[in-house]
């Protein structure tokens, strides 16, 4: 049995990843919508402005999740990061180019190069959630690894129907989450109307995707054998939240719609991590799976980290929340009434 501290840190890392997908989810969605919804420069400007003050702070949730994993569970961190070398490399490139794209686009001289950086922003905003979805699916599916936790896997261990379905689902969720965010942050206009029209079509697609995810989850993982009730329950919650988001979207309650779909994303993260528990890495040969109780740092380090996290996290939540409140005013696309 893992100790209380070990479970606490497992939960904390889950919360950090969930926070990352909730917050950066809409940043990636807005990034994709630069190509998916926006039709001109002014609309792109307004979209970037809507996440401008926030996306960098949102990304720190990922950095902190990675740091927390390194600090609290070095065996998990080492096995995951080295085992998914190329996947994480692609994610890093995505984050690098997304990260500079807004600033570089802003400063470009000709509209040709502005468009280039807009495209880079959109493509990289797709790449990151897609590959994260793919990676976490592979983690719960199980990878060939030795007793030390070193993965040596082939192409189809990384790219299979389950992981691709999960990648597409996470990217789609992020995209729709971004569209919902856009409805919250922008004044109603032709841009928002186009987003609403897209959402109407996308909700049934998302539900189909969730069913595909559930089916492949059943085929590829041991979730239904190990924890059938919780897995089923979480899947029902995800579908119910999606339906709620769809319903409130039709009713024009954009705040509720945003929240419901955001919670669906959070639920996906929790579903995967609950199914993972008490392991942190699943090996094709179950004997080699890394267990939470063997993956962590010493109780001494965990205690220090707990004190620091419990002190800092409320402060961070306070000022980050405050910055969202400061910029709560809706944004107007230039030239639109």
């Amino acid at each position, binding site marked *: 049995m893992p100790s209380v501290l070990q479970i606490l840190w497992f939960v904390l890392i889950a919360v950090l990843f969930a926070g990352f997908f909730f917050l950066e989810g809409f940043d990636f969605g807005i990034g994709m919508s630069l190509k998916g919804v926006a039709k001109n420069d002014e609309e792109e400007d307004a979209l970037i402005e809507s996440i401008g003050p926030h996306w960098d702070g949102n990304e720190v949730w990922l950095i902190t999740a990675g740091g927390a994993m390194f600090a609290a569970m070095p065996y998990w961190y080492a096995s995951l990061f080295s085992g998914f070398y190329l996947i994480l490399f692609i994610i890093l490139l995505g984050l690098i180019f997304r990260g500079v794209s807004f600033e570089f686009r802003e400063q470009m001289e000709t509209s040709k190069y502005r468009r280039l950086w807009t495209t880079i922003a959109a493509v990289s905003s797709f790449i990151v959630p897609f590959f994260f979805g793919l990676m976490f699916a592979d983690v719960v599916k199980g990878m060939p690894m030795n007793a030390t936790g070193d993965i040596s896997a082939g192409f189809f261990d990384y790219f299979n129907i389950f992981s691709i379905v999960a990648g597409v689902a996470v990217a789609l969720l992020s995209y729709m989450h971004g569209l919902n965010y856009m409805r919250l942050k922008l004044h109603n206009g032709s841009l928002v109307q186009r987003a609403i029209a897209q959402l109407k079509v996308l909700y049934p697609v998302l539900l189909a995707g969730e069913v595909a995810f559930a089916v492949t989850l059943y085929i590829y993982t041991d979730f239904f054998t190990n924890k059938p009730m919780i897995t089923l329950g979480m899947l029902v919650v995800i579908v119910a939240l999606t339906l709620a988001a769809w319903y409130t979207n039709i009713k024009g309650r954009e705040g509720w719609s945003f929240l419901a779909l955001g919670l669906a994303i959070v639920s996906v993260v929790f579903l995967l991590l609950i199914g993972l528990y008490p392991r942190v890495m699943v090996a094709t040969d179950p004997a080699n799976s890394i267990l939470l109780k063997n993956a962590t740092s010493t109780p001494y380090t965990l205690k220090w980290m707990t004190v620091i996290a419990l002190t800092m996290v409320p402060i961070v939540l306070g000022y980050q929340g405050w910055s969202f409140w*400061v910029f709560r005013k809706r944004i107007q696309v230039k030239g639109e009434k």
Partner: protein
Amino acid sequence: MNLITGLSMLDLSRFQFAMTTIFHFFFVPLSIGLGLIVAIMETLYVVKGDEQYKRMTKFWGRIFLLSFAVGVVTGIIQEFQFGMNWSRYSRYVGDIFGPALAVEALVAFFCESTFLGLWMFGWDRFKKGVHLAFIWLVSLGSAFSALWILAANSFMQNPVGFKIDHEFDRAVLVDFPALLTNHQLWLEFPHVLFATMLIGPFVVIGVSAFSLLRRKTEVDFFKKSVHIASLIALIGTVGILVTGDSHAYNLQFDQPMKFAAMEGISEDVGGKDEQQPWSVVAYTNPETHETEWSLDVPYLLSILAHHDVKGYNKGTETINKELHEKYDDKFGEDMNYYVPTNTLFYAFRVMAAVAGVLGLLAALAWWFTREKSTFDITKYRWVLWIFALSTFIPFFGTTAGWLITELGRYPWVVYGVLTIADAVSPNVSFASLFISNVVYFLTFTALGGVMIYLTRRVMIQGPEYVDETVDEEQAPADPFSADAFDGQGGKN
């Protein structure tokens, strides 16, 4: 070992680490240094109410934001690559090294990024004093970030507060505060902070000189900017020399091989009553590890290393023997304890020369830009050219400094505890590493190119460009167009 290229996985991993950290460390000190300058300029604006300082804050703020963006994105690589490329290292010292990184994210990164967002987009939403507080919080955050990452590096240089857990075969933390009281940290941290006080100012000085070479407008604007920057650079020079001296002094005891290599000493030098000469240039044969020739200044090494006219230091040969005696039980007899002597030797001289040249240039720049000064610098284009090109000098200094610090720790990744060869990920394929090396290289080249291109563009647009956005910002109808540096970018 790969038969085709002769490069091993370890070589590629080391090269990649060097490349990513060196590139990252172009932008980190630049951001910290520019952030400090921008914060000081905004403080002057708030205190004096002079609009010129606001224009300065905004103009230099644009370059600061560019460098910050590149610094942030290249920083993510740093956190990921320990797990990706150095998984055995991560397992072995994760208990100690991980917390430093996690605390850095929690304490520093959230603070920097959130308040930077508020600063960028909040020009007309807050009282002047509140807006000023944001940029100082960004500066504070970046200083904290430096503190924690250097605490992590200091552990690698001079491991403290840990013991070896033989059951799990890893190093574990037994004294968390010791990571922060590590004397190595208090040598490195101030040294790096003073380095940021050279890099930031010299970009201001250089860009100002380039601007004045292009056209003689806004002379007052650039003179005032350079005056502030050169004063900071002067403080930086004094600080970097003092901390650099104590840093090198301590190496004699903490990492004697690094010290001997920096000074190119292959045989023991000096004695109880003997002076030690300091080599200006020298060549050490990498095969025999013997110094083949050198040009010496008498007494100087004693003065530098012992603050005295006499003294004694061991050469690399003696140190090699001592390290074998001390560590052969643990690491075996086949270890090579020699470090790349010539590289360290010349890197040290480059670093020292850079500090000296920059100090001189900063003093001149400060003198030329005094209000009383009658010297019209815009008439002397060759002087402007010297200052313009000095933009790039400090980067050689910081790179040389890190080369000494990291290469001089060879063969260990954590000094005396874990070797580099035992730290690398065993399961990452040669192809993966090769691809990531090439793509990183291309990416960095592109980012660096765009960065220089955009800095040049900001410079060409000049401070007047900022004025236009200021006007637009004050229009009440659309407060969000305030996004300080938005607007016409690209449309004009």
